C-alpha cells in the first residue's frame, strides 16, 4: 500500500535562507507521526509544502498517492499554525462553510456540527459569533474545522500552542480518536513532551534537516533505559554503596535523590533489584524517555557546545504556554 505521505529530497529556500534541505520522509497509512524541532527548524515550511501552499524548489512529494495535496484536498484535514476564523461569522456557519469547501453537503455538515461541538466540550456555541469565544475555545473550533469532513490525512501544525492544560488534554484525546478512526496523523510541535506522550513515531528537524526519524519504541530502546532515579528511604543513608552495584556506570546526586546511569547493555531490572537490596528505597524508577534529551544529545552535544546545548534544551522543553499537561 502506498504511504500516506512521501517526501523525497525536498528542498526549499527563501532568498538566501535555506529553510528545508534534503528532506526525505515516509509516513505510512494510519500512522501517528510527530514532527519535532525548535522554532524555526523548518517544520511549518515542510507542512506548507505538503499542503501545496508552498512549492519545493527541488525534490518530489506525494500525498495520499497524489502528486500534490491539491488533488486530494477534500481528503486532508489541515490545522495551520497561523489559524484564524471569520470573527463576525457564527461558529456553526463557519464550520459548515469549512465542511462545504471540503466537499461535504451543507445538510450533512449541519447535522454533524452540534454533535462535534458537544464532544469537544463546547455544547451549544454554534449560534455564537466566533469573536465571542475565548482563544482556547476558538482553537477547538478550528480543530473541528479540520476534522469535520473525516479526512484520511490529518495535518496539525503546532496544535497545542497557546492552549491551557485542559484544552491540551481535550485536543489530545480527539487527535487520538481521529487516529483510531483510521486517519493518518502528522502533527508538529516544538514542545517535545507533547510528542513523546502521544506519537508512535517522531521525526526531528533541526536547521532544515532531518536529524532523527524513529519509532518511539525504538527510541526508548536506543536512547533510554539507562537512567534510574533513586530516592533512599533514609535520607542519611550512605550512597557510596550505590556506585558499587554491578552494572552501574556512575551516580549523580541531586538534592536527596540520585540519578544512576547504567553501563551500556545492562539489564535495568537486575540493577534495580540490586540497588533496592543495597539501600532501602523510598522510590526507584526507570527514567522516562525525554525527547528533549534525545534532541540535545543528537544536535548540540555532537557540536560539543555546552552553552548552545542548554539554549536548545530550553527551546524545546516547556513552551511559554506551559503545555506540559
Amino acid at each position, binding site marked *: 500500500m502506498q504511504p500516506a505521505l512521501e517526501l523525497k529530497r525536498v528542498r526549499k529556500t527563501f532568498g538566501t535562507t535555506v529553510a528545508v534541505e534534503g528532506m526525505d520522509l515516509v509516513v505510512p497509512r494510519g500512522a501517528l507521526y510527530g514532527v519535532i524541532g525548535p522554532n524555526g527548524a523548518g517544520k511549518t515550511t515542510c507542512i*506548507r509544502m505538503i*499542503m501545496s*501552499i*508552498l512549492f519545493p524548489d527541488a525534490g518530489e512529494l506525494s500525498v495520499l498517492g497524489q502528486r500534490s495535496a*491539491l488533488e486530494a*484536498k*477534500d481528503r*486532508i484535514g*489541515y*490545522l*495551520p499554525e*497561523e*489559524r*484564524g*476564523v*471569520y*470573527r*463576525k*461569522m457564527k461558529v456553526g456557519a463557519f464550520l459548515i*462553510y*469549512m465542511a*462545504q*469547501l*471540503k*466537499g461535504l453537503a451543507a445538510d450533512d455538515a449541519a447535522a454533524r456540527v452540534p454533535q462535534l461541538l458537544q464532544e469537544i466540550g463546547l455544547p451549544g456555541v454554534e449560534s455564537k459569533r466566533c469573536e465571542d469565544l475565548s482563544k482556547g475555545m476558538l482553537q477547538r473550533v*478550528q480543530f473541528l*474545522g*479540520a476534522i469535520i469532513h473525516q479526512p484520511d490525512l490529518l495535518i496539525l501544525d503546532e496544535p497545542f500552542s497557546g492552549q491551557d492544560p485542559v484544552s491540551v488534554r481535550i485536543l489530545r484525546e480527539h487527535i487520538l480518536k481521529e487516529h483510531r478512526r483510521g486517519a493518518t496523523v502528522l502533527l508538529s510541535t516544538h514542545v517535545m513532551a507533547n510528542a513523546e506522550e502521544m506519537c508512535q513515531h517522531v521525526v526531528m528537524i533541526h536547521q532544515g534537516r532531518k536529524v532523527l526519524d524513529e519509532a518511539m519504541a525504538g527510541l526508548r530502546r536506543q536512547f533510554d533505559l539507562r537512567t534510574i532515579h533513586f530516592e533512599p528511604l533514609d535520607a542519611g543513608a550512605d550512597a557510596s554503596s550505590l556506585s558499587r552495584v554491578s552494572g552501574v556506570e556512575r551516580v549523580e546526586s541531586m538534592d536527596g535523590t540520585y540519578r544512576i546511569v547504567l553501563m551500556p547493555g545492562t539489564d535495568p531490572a537486575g540493577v534495580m533489584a540490586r540497588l533496592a537490596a543495597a539501600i532501602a528505597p523510598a522510590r526507584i524508577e526507570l527514567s522516562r524517555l525525554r525527547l528533549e534529551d534525545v534532541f540535545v544529545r543528537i544536535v548540540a552535544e555532537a557540536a560539543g557546545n555546552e552553552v548552545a546545548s542548554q539554549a536548545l534544551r530550553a527551546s524545546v522543553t516547556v513552551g511559554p504556554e506551559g503545555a506540559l499537561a
Partner: protein
Amino acid sequence: MKQSIRRIGLVAGREFLAAVMNKGFVVGLLLMPAIIAALFVVFPRLLNRNVPAIRGEVAVIDPTGQVSGGLRAALVPEAIAARRRDSATRALQNAPEAVRNAATTTPAMERAIGTPPQLTILERPANADLQREKQWLTESVATDGQRHLALIVLQPDAVVAAAGSTKYGSYELFIPENIDVRLETELYDAVRESLVAARISAHSLNRAEVEAVMNVRRAASVTVAVGKERRTNVAFNQALPFVFAGLLVFGIMIGGQTLLTQTVEEKSNRVIEVLLSAVSPLELMAGKILGQMAVSMLVLALYIGIGLFALMSFAMIGLLDPILIVYLVLFFLISYLLFAAVFSAVGAAVNEMREAQSLMTPVMLVLMAPWMFATVIGREPNSTFAVALSFIPPVNTFAMMIRLGSATPPPTWQVLLTMVVGLLAAAAVTWFAAKIFKVGLLMHGKAPNMATLIRWARAA
C-alpha cells in the same frame, strides 16, 4: 473542474452574504436614496416654506416723471407674484408633460412663487441730492421693520431719447449690502416693465401690438431617429453621461472596497491559510471577485430601478434608450473585473488597511478621472480626445459610457472595440493580479512596494 466551480461558488456565496447581511451595508444602501430624496423633496420645501415676506422701502428718483407710477404698480405683491408665475410657466414649457402637470398644480406653483415682498415706493424729487440718498440706503431702520432696500435713479432720457439720438437713457440701481438676490431681480424686471410701458405710451403705440410683434415662441426641438421621434430634453441629455459615469464608479467602489478590506482582514486574522487548505488561491480570488460583483450588481440594480421608476413616474421613460442599460451592465462588468483584480491583489499584498493606502492612491485617481472628463466628453462626444480615451484602458469603459449617454452616441463598431479592449485589459490585469494574490496571501512583514509586487509576479 466541477469541484473547482463548486468551491468558487461557495466562496462567492459567503462573500456575498457577509457583505449583505450586515447593518452597515443596509444603512449605506438606504442612505444614498435617502440623501437624494432629501435633496429633491425636503430641501425645496425647507427653502420656500414660511419665509417671512421681505418688507422695506424703495426710493425712486424719476426726472422723467413718467416711470414711477408704473413702477409702483409693477412692484405691488400681486404683480410680483404674477411675474414669478409667468417665468415658472415659461421655464416648464419644454419640460415633459407629466413634469409640467405635476409642477403646475396649485401647491407646487405656490411654492415656486413663494411670498412676494411687501415694498413701499418713496418718490424723491428730481433734484434730490444723490449722496444723501445713498447715505439713506446705509441707514437701516429697525424700529418699524422697514428696511431701506434700494435706490432707483432714472436718467432724464430714459423714456424719450434726447433730440438727434435714437438711444434711450437707462437707470441706475443702488442697493445696500446683504440684499436678497431674488428681490434684486424683481427690481430689474419691474423697472424694465415700467420703462417699456412708459416708452410705448410716449410713442403712442399699442402695447399689445408691439408685444405680439416681438413674441416668437421658442420651439422644443424634436430628436429624429430611425423609426421614432422624441422630444429633445436638454437637461436630461446633459445629466445622463454624469449619471452613467457615476453609476460605474459607484458600483466599482462598492464591490472593490469590500473586496480590499475583506482580503486584508482574512490575511491579518490568519483565516487565509485555513482557507487555502480547502481552496486554491485562484479559486479564492475568483470566488471573492464574483461574490462582491453580486453585491455591486445588487446595489446597481436597486439604483437603476429607482432611476427608472422616477423616469416612469414623470413619464420620461421614453427619453432613455433601453440598450443603454444593457451597455451600462456590460461596461460595469468589464471595468469591475479589472479593478476588482487590482483591489484583491492589493488586499493580498498588504498586512493592514493602512499599508493599502499608498498602493490604492493611483487606483483611486484612475477611478476619479471619469468625473474630470465627463463634461468635456459629454459636450464633444466624438472629439479626437473622447474617441482616443474610449480605447485606452482602464478609462475606456467610462469614456465610452459617457459618450453613449450623450446626445450624439458613437458608432457601434467603436462601442464593440471598447468592449474588446476592455476585456483584453481586464484579462491581462487579472492574470498579473492573480500572481500577486497567490504570493502575497502568505507574506507577512514589510509592506511591499511596486517593485516587490513585480518581483512576486515574476516568481509566481
